[in-house]
């Protein structure tokens, strides 16, 4: 897929919580096709200490409005800095990058599991799956209920299940403690994004249940376009760049000890 480098304009910024915000950016050219699971490399200007671009998953694309949106969690200097950008300003963005999720077909069931900011790529995925006729269940795991954001958006595409570590909403515990894990075989496929330890626990369960499973990795990236070889993950075929061969991998291709 052809990659673009464009100055996109911030047309909307929504502070969702102390930690999360959403940026909606518009292009002055028609947006190219973007697949669910793909990401972008965003230039961070005006931050004293950020040097490299930052990878962000495509959260949603609205072709009618010609906008692309990102859901960002504040974890460090760049994500904090970006939270202060004003509507009207532009961001230089390289996109769409990487390979997305492999969609399944008609009238099958898919379980989408997002941990923390890992829900970012799942919205756009859910939209595509629903369009394909897939029945989508989205399981969202957070520490405490105040971290639950955008539930209504996810509900548009199917049921939303919740776990919180402190039990303040939904099932208490980690995502794998949710009852849905007792009947994983109902799903044709599991798609997940979040902390690696969470994804590994899910992969193990999916593996045991014999359910196909794709994970979206968030390895440290310098270039995002396959040029630096910094972002590799070990696969059955050796080290592969997460930015070009991923960020989505089928767990059977990874060398995870599960």
């Amino acid at each position, binding site marked *: 897929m052809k990659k673009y480098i464009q100055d996109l304009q911030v047309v909307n910024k929504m502070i969702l919580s102390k930690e999360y915000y959403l940026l909606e950016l518009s292009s002055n050219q028609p947006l190219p096709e973007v697949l669910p699971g793909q990401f972008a490399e965003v230039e961070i200007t005006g931050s004293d200490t950020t040097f490299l671009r930052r990878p962000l998953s495509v959260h949603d694309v609205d072709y009618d409005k010609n906008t692309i949106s990102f859901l960002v969690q504040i974890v460090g200097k760049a994500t904090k800095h970006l939270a202060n950008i004003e509507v009207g300003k532009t961001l230089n963005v390289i996109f769409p990058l990487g390979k997305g999720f492999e969609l399944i077909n008609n009238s099958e069931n898919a379980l989408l599991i997002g941990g923390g900011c890992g829900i970012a790529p799942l919205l756009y995925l859910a939209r595509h799956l629903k369009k394909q006729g897939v029945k989508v269940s989205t399981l969202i795991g957070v520490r405490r209920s105040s971290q639950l954001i955008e539930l209504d958006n996810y509900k548009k595409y199917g049921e939303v299940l919740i776990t919180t570590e402190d039990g303040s909403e939904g099932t208490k515990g980690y995502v794998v403690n949710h009852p849905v894990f007792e009947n994983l075989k109902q799903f044709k496929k599991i798609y997940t994004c979040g902390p690696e330890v969470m994804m590994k626990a899910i992969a193990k369960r999916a593996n045991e249940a014999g359910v196909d499973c794709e994970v979206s990795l968030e390895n440290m990236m310098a270039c995002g376009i396959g040029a630096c070889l910094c972002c590799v993950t*070990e696969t059955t075929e050796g080290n592969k760049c997460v930015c070009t061969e991923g960020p989505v991998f089928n767990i059977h291709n990874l060398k995870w000890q599960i």
Partner: protein
Amino acid sequence: MADLKVNIGRLELKNPVLTASGTFGYGEEFADFIDLNRLGGIIVKGTTLHHREGNAYPRMAETPSGMLNAVGLQNKGVDYFIEHIYPRIKHYDSAIIVNVSGSIVEDYVATAEKLASLDKIPAIELNISCPNVKEGGMAFGTSCPGAKSVISAVRKVYPGSLMVKLSPNVTNIVDIAKVAEDEGADSVSLINTLLGMAVNAETRRPVLSTITGGLSGPAIKPVALRMVWQVYNAVKIPIIGLGGIMNATDAIEFFLAGATAIQIGTANFIDPQVTIKVIDGVNEYLDRHNIKSVKELTGSLIV
């Protein structure tokens, strides 16, 4: 439009802007962003005799105005390059130069010999300065006898233009540059990365799997400029300068300090179009200062 042509020994480049090894893949990765035919040269990934998986992840850390990498020469080996990659990239109207690495002298020699047979590879860059591999690599670049052994051996089998890439992790880079000149290198390129380290204070662990890695980016520009200047005042062969070049002004600084051509590395990650901007910017600078050829800039620092 000024004259941007430069000569690296017998090799003529249509302009003095090359891409640095390991930061530009095989060029193809940037085809969506720029016209690769406009580049003076493309120095492809570090290539070794045999396939290498490189180091374990994590391989990267951001640092103030720079980054550390610990890629460790991941590549599929020279035979794979010749068979699968060369045919795809040889048509670029830009000098394709292969960066050659090894752990023992014999590997360098064997790799260079194989590359010597390729029509469209006018030069190789001998990487005697990679800080990210345990054996060989930097060891050759940090002592005169080490440098001598690999350069002289490769010179014997490689008739093309031989560029030797120097390590900055030395007490006196001039000594190594002189060895390269004496052993018949056509040019020297400098600098490779400075050996550095990053620590995560919260996890109390090193950021890189290898603990230490190679520092690149604007942070190292002052060191690179100093070394280019020192080497320019000590050897006669052309110098290809690099280290932290982000824009045309940086490139001009390297020319003034003694570089005949420059390479752009880390900057490609931040702006994949930077190379073209530098070419255009150098041209604009020359026109504005009424300088006919970029060659006039080399070493023209007024001191």
